[in-house]
């Protein structure tokens, strides 16, 4: 095909430009733009109407003018060169190496948009991942192939927690090929270097691929960064049979960039100015997590987003919550009390928990114990609230027991060290230890058999 090059830019607005008198332009194809000073940029076709094409420029339109700028339509969609050598490397948000190393020799070139997984071809996630964090393993267990976001807010230690998960995540069945793909969208240099430093220091870097789009990089580039990272993850998971954990941070910046493009296109806005297709757009990324039949690899996603004003009903956390399989929510009040990780246990949820736990996976009593801990903590917190209003004296003996339980629970169970890696058995044991504080009659969520087996020995030990 002839290289189709045009100098017919008619209008530029925000990240978009209109190219006139085009022919044979394909929807969604990649565009190369050469500025008057020789600088090269890339973009994609957003809309075509007869002989006009609307192009979105990834690096932003500043400096583009309509005389000397040349536009070339490449004839294919944006692809990413991939190979196993990506591990241990650092790339920018467009997938180009920035660690000073040699360019990547591609095994394959993959479309960064991927394709929807056939639900028939999916394999259900059911292998428990041990993160070493009690509030996740014990109460909101994560499984391979799950997408479990962390809902955080500014000032909370979500980055430390994500790094801890990336460091410690393992399966209890044994050691297998494990990789981390890390995509940073619009985070600060300081945050990015925290991750790089942490991965380097703990030796995790050699099994990690990093894509870094910093806060001062073009916002529009952020639209492709997570897709590039997921394309790399898909290659590692389903071609190289590795178990991949993808950490995407911070989705809020991504959505802002999407809103920027939508506004530039003068689209009808949905809630809070975000485009009406935000749900679909997020879904095309989140749904790329999972397992496939007949493949041993998996993609587990941990997207991180900061809730504006700690508001869970803001469109970004809200729509994310509807797509992902649960959420881990961080609490400002626990953080203020100096508890790390400040996981807000009540509203946090892992939807796939029941698939990954139980006999042969973690332990038979896990589900009942988990439900009981939730119920007891909820009741304890309620009792504490009551005590604030009416004074301790107004509580019944049972409520007092629950109130005490909830305080100890926060201090012993939720709180743990940043480098403390608890096994699932340690976490379960801790749960039973705490339940000894509550009258047995109140343990309605646990089968009698498990009370006999796990709780009675602890109680008897106390009596002796």
């Amino acid at each position, binding site marked *: 095909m002839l290289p189709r090059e045009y100098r017919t830019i008619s209008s530029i607005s925000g990240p978009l430009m209109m190219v006139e008198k085009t022919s*044979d*332009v*394909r*929807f*969604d*194809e990649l565009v190369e733009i050469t500025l008057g000073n020789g600088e090269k940029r890339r973009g994609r076709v*957003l*809309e*075509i*109407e007869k002989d006009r094409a609307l192009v979105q420029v990834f690096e932003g339109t500043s400096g583009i003018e309509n005389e000397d700028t040349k536009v070339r339509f490449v004839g294919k*969609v944006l692809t990413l060169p991939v190979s196993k050598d990506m591990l241990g490397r650092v790339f920018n948000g467009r997938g180009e190496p920035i660690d000073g190393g040699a360019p990547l020799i591609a095994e394959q070139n993959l479309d960064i948009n991927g*394709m*929807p*997984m*056939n*639900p*028939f*071809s*999916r394999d*259900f996630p059911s292998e428990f991942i041990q993160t070493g964090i009690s509030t996740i393993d014990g109460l909101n267990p994560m499984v391979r*192939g*799950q997408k479990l976001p962390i809902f955080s807010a500014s000032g909370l230690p979500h980055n430390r927690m994500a790094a801890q998960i990336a460091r410690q995540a393992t399966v209890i069945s044994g050691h297998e090929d494990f990789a981390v793909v890390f995509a940073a969208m619009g985070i600060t240099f300081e945050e990015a270097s925290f991750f790089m430093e942490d991965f380097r220091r703990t030796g995790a870097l050699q099994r990690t691929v990093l894509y870094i789009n910093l806060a001062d990089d073009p916002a529009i580039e952020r639209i492709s960064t997570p897709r590039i990272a997921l394309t790399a993850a898909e290659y590692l998971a*389903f071609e190289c049979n590795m178990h991949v954990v993808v950490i995407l941070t911070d989705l809020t910046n991504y959505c802002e960039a999407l809103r920027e493009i939508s506004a530039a296109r003068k*689209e*009808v*806005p*949905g*809630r809070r100015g975000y485009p*009406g297709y935000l*749900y*679909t757009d997020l*879904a095309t990324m*989140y*749904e790329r997590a*999972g397992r496939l*039949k007949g*493949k041993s690899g998996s993609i587990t996603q941990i997207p991180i987003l900061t809730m504006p004003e700690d508001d*869970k*009903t803001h*469109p970004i956390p*809200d*729509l994310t*919550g*509807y*797509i992902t*399989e*649960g959420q881990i929510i961080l609490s400002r009040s626990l953080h203020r009390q100096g508890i790390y990780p400040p996981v807000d246990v009540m*509203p946090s*949820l892992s*939807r796939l928990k*029941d698939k990954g736990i139980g006999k042969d996976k973690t332990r038979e009593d896990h589900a009942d114990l988990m439900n009981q801990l*939730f*119920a007891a903590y*909820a009741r304890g917190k309620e009792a504490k609230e*009551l005590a604030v*209003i*009416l004074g301790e004296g*107004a509580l*019944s003996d049972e409520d007092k027991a629950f109130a005490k339980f909830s305080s100890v629970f926060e201090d012993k169970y939720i709180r743990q060290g940043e480098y403390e890696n608890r096994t699932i058995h340690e976490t379960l044991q801790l749960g039973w230890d705490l339940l000894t504080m509550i009258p047995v*009659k109140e343990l309605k969520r646990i089968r009698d058999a498990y009370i006999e087996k796990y709780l009675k020995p602890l109680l008897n030990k106390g009596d002796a």
Partner: protein
Amino acid sequence: MPEKKEIKGVIERISGSLVVAGGMEGASMQDVVHIGELGLVGEILEVNGDKASIQVYEETSGLMPGEPVVSMGEPLSVELGPGIIEQFYDGIQRPLELIEKAAKSHYISRGISVPAIDRSKKWNFNPKVKVGDDVIAGDILGVVQETVVVEHRIMVPYGVKGKVSKIEKGDHTVEDVIAVIDDNGTKYEVKMLQRWPVRKPRPVARRLPPNVPMTTGQRVVDAFFPVALGGTACVPGPFGSGKTVIQHQFAKWAQAQIVVYVGCGERGNEMTDVLLEFPELDDPQTGQPLMKRTTLIANTSNMPVAAREASVYTAITLAEYYRDMGYSVALMADSTSRWAEALREMSGRLEEMPGEEGYPAYLGTRLASFYERAGRCIVNGKEGREGSITVIGAVSPPGGDLSEPVTQNTLRVTKVFWGLDANLAYQRHFPAINWLNSYSLYTERLDPYWDEKFDDQWTSLRVEAMSLLEQEAQLNEVVRLVGIDALSRDERMVMETAKSLREDFLHQNAFHEIDTYASMDKQFKMLKTIVNFHHAGLDALHKNAPMNKLFNLPVREQIARMRYLEEKDIGQIDKLEDTIKEQINGIVPVGGDSNAA
């Protein structure tokens, strides 16, 4: 039938899933078109002069202006015939298993054309009419055994009547002619495979009032907020409140002969879960795997958005087809909000004037016409068979805010509202249906049915239990202000019973092998026992029984464990009545009388 005409045009504009084609004179609204060299499937949404706006059911990347667009002159239709049950379709009725085979990949590639119903499989056709019989549309010509539990009834197609002039018993494919009907000289060949446009409701003879319950095995639903056969219900709730688990529970345990489950813009893993779980689970009515009476339609959130819009219509048309055979069908749609969002997205691309929150102005009418396709009715045919479609739609209101347009428009047309409550979900009270704000407009209509079954005790039990829960909510306000000690002994009893109702009756563990399903008999016995204890307890308190002892009687633990009794052992619940009496008598002080309170 009108002649099918083929119209050829070319692509002029592409914007996401919307394509505008020129040169389309004569194309009609809602006709199916094939777009571009890949032959992507689409549907005409708008006709303006020779231009047609088309929503494309597949990813449009790579399309180019000038590529051909071909209209087949036929509206979007589904294929009907044996082989639908146990299938797993996408939004436009393509079997996902065949897509996997055709694409040779785990991903859905584009332009794949696979038949909805297997053309090569032979079914054993058993005629129910003989040559010379007069038949009208809807009459059953014969049956094939589709699965162990579903007998597929082949009906005379709509608009056909006459004398049967030929009928073929034996093994046939769906495309073989199995009968010929002679209408005064006009011969009509009937095949097992029939087609129906998805946006057109299938006609029925007569509609019936919804006064037969559809039990679901879920206590809070069956006892307090029941749904009738042919009814409509909606489950709005914020994320994490257990919407999908409730939908799955209904699909598993609802007393319907056929289940159509449509995952509309939801998670891929959830559909896989259903797909893997249903063949393993046994249906309590038939003892056979649930999959043997289920058909699944999946258009997950990452699949093309336009097909999501079509998926609910595909689902309800399949449901109507089985209803016409005389079955009770339950249709679960998860989630109608995603469907509405697909409408909004297409509307935006068509540059229509937006209504509330960017949704098109016709959102309400679309929702209403979808829910109106539910109902219990006498279907077409001389026999006067009864069939029903019960629709249960999940709604995902953004931020859990029920004032948003999709929820409000849905509430206007559905008769049951199961309001999911995030706070209940945090406390791990599942199903998280809030008993204070949910409602069912069928309750009064269905009470007589259960009263007849349970010796006229049902209505009074239900009303008393609900009023105890209501009183608890009010007393809780008092407790929050001045503490539990301010309550009278009677009020303390109310609080205790309401707690027992909440924890021992309303709370139900979907993942517990026994607790997951409760028959109406079991529900009645459980409710009766709890209310009995309340009466006996009040009585004892009046006779000066000590409150602490009463609340800590060992029988209460037995009440708490009623839910874990297997269906065959529920007779044991009846014995609790005596145990309650005995133990309460044990704590009433000798000589205590009602004046002593």
